[in-house]
């Protein structure tokens, strides 16, 4: 394989890793605040994709020029993000909140229940077949310095990079962000109301919002969505979150990029059937040496679930 193709594969890996990272941040945020693996997150993202499909099909029935296209996509991302954020809050308030004091594995079953319900909603909404995203741009590729970049991939970057930057600003500079980080570093939130409660709501909203934004990127990248995509993407994103150190936001982003890269490279070298196995093998081997993930902190409480 020559250098140009290799770099192209890396490019694909990084773009897919970008939105995987955003979804992984969703998992990590929720885990950091309420100690729950929100298995339904992938399906929330899938529903965001359904919504953005509807919006884009409505706004862009024929391909348009790059500027309008980008604006439309950003708009779709924002709407989808709002939708997913609110959906996440609803899920938390109605399903997870009553279970804050339940035995540790019971909320897990609820997340799976929610996942099934959302998947069914997706099935009814878009049907069982793959649904195609509309062509947004007139030209599908553009040459930059000798490489041809797909406009779709540029679009993904346009969505993902600002999202990550805003996230960074949010977490570092605002009061909300600081309290989020301090909570994640110390303990898990179990209180039902008050400051902590508001924090939980905000966390769920944020994770949903990022997921919604990522769904648009995923749809543009893969050009199709189907009602089962939440599961596969969710699995990769969860792996990314764990790889980066669950509870750590930068870890989730970095984990996402790494997972995307591993996937693309293993498809190129080993063939498409080994992609998911490679990702998990890397994860398992990595965890054997550094169980807390890349940015995670090793806790000394042994035997703690």
């Amino acid at each position: 394989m020559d250098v140009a193709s290799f770099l192209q594969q890396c490019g694909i890996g990084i773009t897919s890793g970008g939105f995987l990272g955003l979804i992984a941040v969703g998992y990590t945020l929720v885990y950091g605040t309420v100690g729950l693996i929100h298995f339904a997150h992938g399906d929330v993202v899938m529903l965001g994709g359904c919504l953005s499909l509807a919006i884009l099909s409505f706004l862009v029935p024929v391909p348009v020029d790059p500027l309008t296209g980008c604006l439309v996509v950003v708009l779709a991302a924002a709407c989808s993000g709002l939708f997913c954020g609110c959906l996440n809050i609803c899920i938390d308030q109605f399903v997870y909140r009553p279970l804050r004091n339940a035995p540790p594995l019971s909320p897990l079953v609820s997340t799976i229940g929610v996942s099934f319900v959302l998947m069914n909603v997706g099935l009814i909404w878009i049907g069982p077949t793959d649904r195609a995203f509309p062509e947004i741009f007139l030209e599908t590729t553009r040459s930059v310095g000798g490489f041809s970049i797909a406009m779709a991939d540029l679009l993904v970057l346009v969505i993902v990079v600002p999202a990550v930057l805003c996230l960074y600003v949010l977490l570092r500079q605002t009061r909300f962000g600081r309290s989020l980080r301090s909570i994640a570093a110390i303990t898990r939130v179990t209180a039902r109301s008050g400051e902590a409660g508001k924090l939980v709501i905000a966390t769920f909203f944020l994770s949903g919002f990022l997921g919604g934004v990522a769904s648009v990127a995923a749809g543009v990248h893969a050009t199709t969505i189907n009602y089962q995509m939440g599961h596969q993407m969710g699995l990769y994103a969860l792996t990314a979150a764990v790889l980066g150190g669950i509870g750590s936001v930068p870890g989730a982003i970095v984990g996402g990029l790494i997972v995307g890269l591993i996937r693309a490279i293993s498809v190129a070298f080993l063939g498409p059937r080994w992609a998911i196995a490679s990702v998990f093998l890397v994860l398992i081997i990595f965890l054997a040496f550094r169980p807390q993930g890349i940015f995670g902190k090793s806790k000394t409480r042994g035997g703690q679930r």
Partner: protein
Amino acid sequence: MRSNWFCPQNPPPFRLAWSVVVCLTIGLNTCGCQKIESNRVCLVSSLPRTGVSRQVSDEVVRGIRLAIDEVKEKAGRFTLEYRDLDNSAAASGRWTSEGEAANARMAVQDPNVMAYIGTLNSGAARVSMPILNYADLLMVSPANTAVGLTKPGLGLPGEPNVYRPSGKLNYIRVVPADDLQGPLAADWAFERGVRRVFVIDDAGVYGRGVASLFADRCREQGMAVLEHVSIDPQAAEFKSFVGSVMSADPDLIYFGGSARTKGGQLARDLVSAESEAILLVSDGCRTKAFLEAAGAASLEGRCFATSAGLSPEQADCNEKLLFLRYRQKYGTCPSNAAIHGYEAARLVIRAIADVGVKDRRAIVESAFASQVDDGVLGQWGIDANGDTTLQEVSVSVVRGGEFVHEEVMSTAGIGKKNGSR
């Protein structure tokens, strides 16, 4: 506390509710066609009825129902009852071996069932064939094309005898197998001047089989088979993979599989990577679902599909009486799947009517001896292996958002050069 060491909560009302639930489920299940009735015969079909495959299985079922309506639900002195069984699971939207095995066992254990029309997927047939064979139940498939199911020496070692544990045959299919479709597709490609092919399949029984046969024939014809790769049918997209396909620079890309196993997504990714190669897909992709998933507009004129038998658009939809009746009932022209479902059901109904008694073995033998002169597919019979004697494969092209018939390929025997129209 001690007496309740097994169930710490208060058990009696719970156990009572439990027994009631169990009895209810028994009741629900036993009021099926379980009792032996002298004048009713049950016809069962086992197809994937959820998910992407539903479009195709709907058409097969329509064909079957049309055949039953034609004879006004009577086969000789028997009244026909038809049960449409699902061998798929809701969450996965594809056939499962548990579902297929359960359907086969249910058919076998019901003494009124005299024929089993199934399956759509060759992989599912491998599960139910031994079960049905032990019970001597006639099995007619409207769509299985994997060679190993009937033809000795072409499939895995031991096929097809492993599917006939009782030693006798009970399986018939009304479509020509892939030992026709694969090689004729290669001949067609050779005629078009293709010299470099990249072969892809979905790793399933059917997809891998037809792709391998295609690749073998390509090599025989002297074409360069650059690579033969299986994709992961669960992947969301194939951008990375498509990159490696492009760098091999093929003239033609072949895909053995279906829309359910991501044929459409693969086609879409190939087109968006600006591949200039011709795309040739097997009959599993000759469906609406594939065109929708791939984006029919982008495939215009460059995507071809093979299908077993004659393609329906060949015959004028207004001509044949059957097509008219189908259109009357369902509003559209019948597709390939519907026609084969219809022929399969007709074969079964005739066999049942001819035999006149509820003897499964006799019905099987009668079916094997069938000769069809007045069907939509032309004249055909069943050979000693259970295959149809039809030997035609059609090639269609995507035009105007649909598959349009292009040419017919046929051969009198495998290994000869093609005899196209």
